[in-house]
């Protein structure tokens, strides 16, 4: 009746996951109670859960990402502390069965449920506003993509308390991930959580690509798009081209595990090297999917906070597309040590170095954007400068690892771990926090507390370097990654320093949370009245903060790059004659997304635990939801012209206030 699921699936004899689960449950129930007590269920349902507005969906993505970033960070705290404690004869407090799940969950969560939603959320929120349009190409699809990602995140977290998670690392290499060597449900949780979330990512890629290529304001040719839109486009194209490979590869592993197929098994001709090749054919583009939008965010920030246009816009576009294409040609550098031979290793090593050309060009263009500008060191700019320092060094260690003989010494060591954290944290995480600080006023109508933001940055920056510099040293000393305990006493002091760094990072996270709370409480004093708190250059800053549901009462006529800046220079914000308002059709809210997400969760849980009737029921339910959606008669509402006019006049009043102030 319940497949493989029994009461033994809950780890009654392991205090750590039980306590963690209890805390999460308490927090969830507390939140639900709060919503009930303040009577906000209708609001939540109508304004957020069933919303198909890209701005709402973007915010929900970011919230999901931040929550999962925190969960992944807690995993990291456990890993660092375990390694610091388990030196010599001590076994630490996490037995291998547990530790192995934690580092696997850490990687999976951080990349697929932390960084991806954060980056996708920012793209979702910002891109339509920057393009001068009302929403993405497929709003309901957008909502569905979010809820599928949330379903995957939910499944990963359920594995903490019902069953177990994978113990293979974040990429489940066979034969270890085959049923013979991982007989439990851990790898299955991984497979289905990632497949479901991967579908959400693919939906996003299609949505954003179509939006950027086919849905832009009048006059916005390709070379008049903001740089962030270009990087969002490159990232979305990579998603479309890469995620299906992951889907296929995990499906093959799933067939091996569920139906006795032999894609990657030791027996009957399976080929484990094929898994490694296929999964990294996705895996390498994936990191560019994450980092390209971060590059775009920094392009916006460097130009805004230098008061200058981005230097070398066209070569930035060229470099972005160059990186996009070459990212598909370097995947073998993740396994130089598989024994491919001199020719193969050299070819991929050279290709990997070539991709650094694109990034180098970008760094120099950012630097020259500052040249001759008026540089302001507000919080987003601090993140940007911290990024340049951190990411360039991280990129350098990457090119070092692209030299195969060097990689033979350092593959799978803590040097490698330090490298990829260097570029992912320095690039993606710094970029996401920069973007959040930068666009928060636009999303919510008030600014974030500046000094707390700066303090959070300094703690993150310092904490990062204190945590990861020792890991570079340990890698050079021969320490391999993923060790549950350590037998070399010389390594102990370095592990201690790294653990201390994690404490600093935790302080940074705390200050970041305090910043949010303080800013909410002082929001009236921090109110963004003009819609343009940073003196920005692109079209999102021409809308009120927060923008109305339809973004623009009248779609802007774009005449060049940095459209909002041009308008400000020419005082076009105050047109001589009144704009002609027309009724605006907006897509209707729908529960399709969240209901599909619920059925996806049920189907995932069912297939993990072999509860076949539930799987069938979930599929029927999901398809029925789709049919109900397809059957509806009205898919748009109309905002009458009078309402549009009223809202827009408030925006014009705010602009007048800014003009007189300036």
């Amino acid at each position, binding site marked *: 009746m319940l497949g493989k699921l029994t009461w033994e699936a809950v780890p009654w004899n392991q205090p750590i996951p039980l306590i963690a689960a209890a805390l999460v449950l308490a927090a969830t129930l507390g939140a639900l109670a709060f919503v009930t007590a303040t009577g906000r269920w209708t609001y939540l349902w109508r304004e957020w859960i069933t919303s198909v507005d890209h701005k709402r969906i973007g915010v929900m993505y970011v919230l999901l990402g931040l929550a999962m970033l925190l969960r992944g960070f807690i995993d990291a705290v456990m890993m660092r502390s375990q390694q610091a404690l388990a030196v010599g004869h001590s076994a630490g407090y996490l037995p291998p069965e547990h530790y192995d799940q934690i580092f696997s969950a850490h990687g999976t969560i951080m990349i697929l449920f932390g960084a991806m939603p954060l980056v996708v959320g920012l793209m979702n929120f910002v891109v339509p506003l920057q393009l001068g*349009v*009302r929403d993405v*190409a*497929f709003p309901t699809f957008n909502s569905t993509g979010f809820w599928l990602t949330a379903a995957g995140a939910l499944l990963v977290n359920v594995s903490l308390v019902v069953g177990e998670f994978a113990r293979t690392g974040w990429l489940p290499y066979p034969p270890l991930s085959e049923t013979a060597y991982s007989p439990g449900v851990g790898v299955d949780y991984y497979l289905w959580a990632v497949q479901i979330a991967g579908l959400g990512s*693919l939906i996003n*890629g*299609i*949505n954003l*690509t*179509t939006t950027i*290529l*086919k*849905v*832009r*304001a*009048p*006059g*916005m*040719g*390709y070379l*008049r798009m903001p740089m962030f839109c270009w990087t969002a486009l490159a990232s979305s194209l990579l998603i*479309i*081209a*890469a*995620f*299906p*490979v992951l*889907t*296929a*590869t995990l*499906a*093959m592993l799933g*067939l*091996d595990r569920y*139906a*006795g*197929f*032999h*894609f990657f*098994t030791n*027996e*009957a*001709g*399976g*080929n484990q090297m*094929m898994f490694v090749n*296929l999964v990294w*054919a996705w895996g390498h583009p994936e990191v560019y999917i994450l980092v390209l939008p971060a590059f775009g965010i920094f392009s916006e920030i460097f130009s805004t906070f230098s008061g200058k246009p981005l230097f070398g816009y066209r070569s930035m576009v060229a470099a972005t597309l160059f990186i996009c294409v070459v990212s598909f040609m370097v995947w073998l550098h993740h396994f130089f040590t598989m024994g491919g031979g001199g020719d193969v290793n050299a070819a991929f090593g050279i290709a990997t170095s070539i991709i650094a050309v694109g990034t180098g060009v970008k760094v120099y263009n950012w630097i020259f954007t500052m040249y001759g500008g008026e540089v302001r060191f507000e919080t987003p700019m601090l993140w940007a400068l911290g990024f340049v320092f951190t990411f360039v060094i991280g990129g350098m260690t990457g090119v070092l690892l692209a030299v195969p003989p060097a990689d033979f010494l350092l593959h799978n060591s803590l040097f490698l771990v330090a490298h990829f954290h260097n570029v992912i944290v320095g690039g993606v995480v710094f970029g996401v926090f920069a973007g959040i600080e930068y666009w928060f006023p636009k999303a919510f109508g008030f600014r974030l507390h500046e000094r707390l933001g700066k303090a959070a940055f300094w703690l993150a920056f310092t904490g990062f370097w204190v945590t990861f510099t020792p890991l570079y040293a340990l890698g050079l000393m021969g320490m391999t990654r993923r060790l549950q305990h350590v037998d070399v006493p010389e390594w102990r002091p370095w592990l201690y320093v790294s653990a201390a760094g994690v404490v600093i990072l935790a302080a940074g996270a705390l200050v970041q949370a305090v910043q949010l709370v303080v800013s909410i409480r002082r929001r009236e004093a921090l109110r963004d009245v003009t819609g343009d708190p940073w003196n920005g250059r692109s079209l999102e800053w021409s809308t009120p903060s927060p923008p109305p549901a339809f973004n623009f009462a009248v*779609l802007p006529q*774009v005449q060049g790059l940095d459209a909002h800046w041009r308008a400000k220079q020419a005082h076009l914000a105050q047109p001589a004659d009144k704009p002609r308002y*027309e*009724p*605006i*059709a907006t897509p209707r809210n729908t529960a399709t997304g969240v209901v599909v997400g619920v059925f996806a969760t049920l189907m995932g849980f069912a297939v993990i635990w072999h509860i076949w009737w539930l799987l069938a029921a979930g599929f029927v339910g999901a*398809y029925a939801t789709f*049919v109900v959606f*397809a*059957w509806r*008669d009205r*898919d748009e509402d109309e905002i009458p012209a009078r309402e549009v006019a009223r809202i827009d006049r408030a925006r014009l009043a705010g602009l007048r206030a800014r003009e007189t102030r300036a």
Partner: protein
Amino acid sequence: MSAAAHVRATGHGQGGPASKRIVVGYGFWLFLLSDIVMFSAFFAAWAVLARSTAGGPSGRDLFEPSRVAAETALLLASSFTCGLSALATRARSLVWTELALLATGLLGAAFLVLEAQEFAGLVARGAGPQRSAFLSAFFALVGCHGLHVAAGLLWLGTMMAQIPVKGFRATLERRMLCFNLFWHTLDIIWVGLFTVVYLLGAGA
């Protein structure tokens, strides 16, 4: 988006957002391209594993050219009737649209029956996917295509139910466009499949 924005825009920036028909078609093309990438991964696995027969039967022992020819004929014919349904939709003829869709569905179903027979026969002979990596790759690749055909039939059935009820409104026209794209793409993939797997594979 307001009506004024739906100009004859090409999306190259001069006219504003493109029309819904263009946007939907474009997005669906992107989905089809992603699907082709997924099939490519299965094709790649096939290429790698084609000779890993683990001492068991190979393509030459197992493939039946006449069956493959029949399946191809059925699928190509269903593509033809699908095209007819698109013409019937354009002409706003409910009867012919439904008939063409029905024919498409029946031909597609017949294709699936032949394929299911082939799979069952192979399993009965001890040449199921568990026998060797070669057979795993075969069943997964051909089966993935078959699953897509089955999903297409489900979609087709839903639309056949919906068109009489709702009529030829704009949303349904767009969905017919998408279905046509989907069905023809499956045909293209089948051509690749029978060439690479059955024709080349039987020679191995």
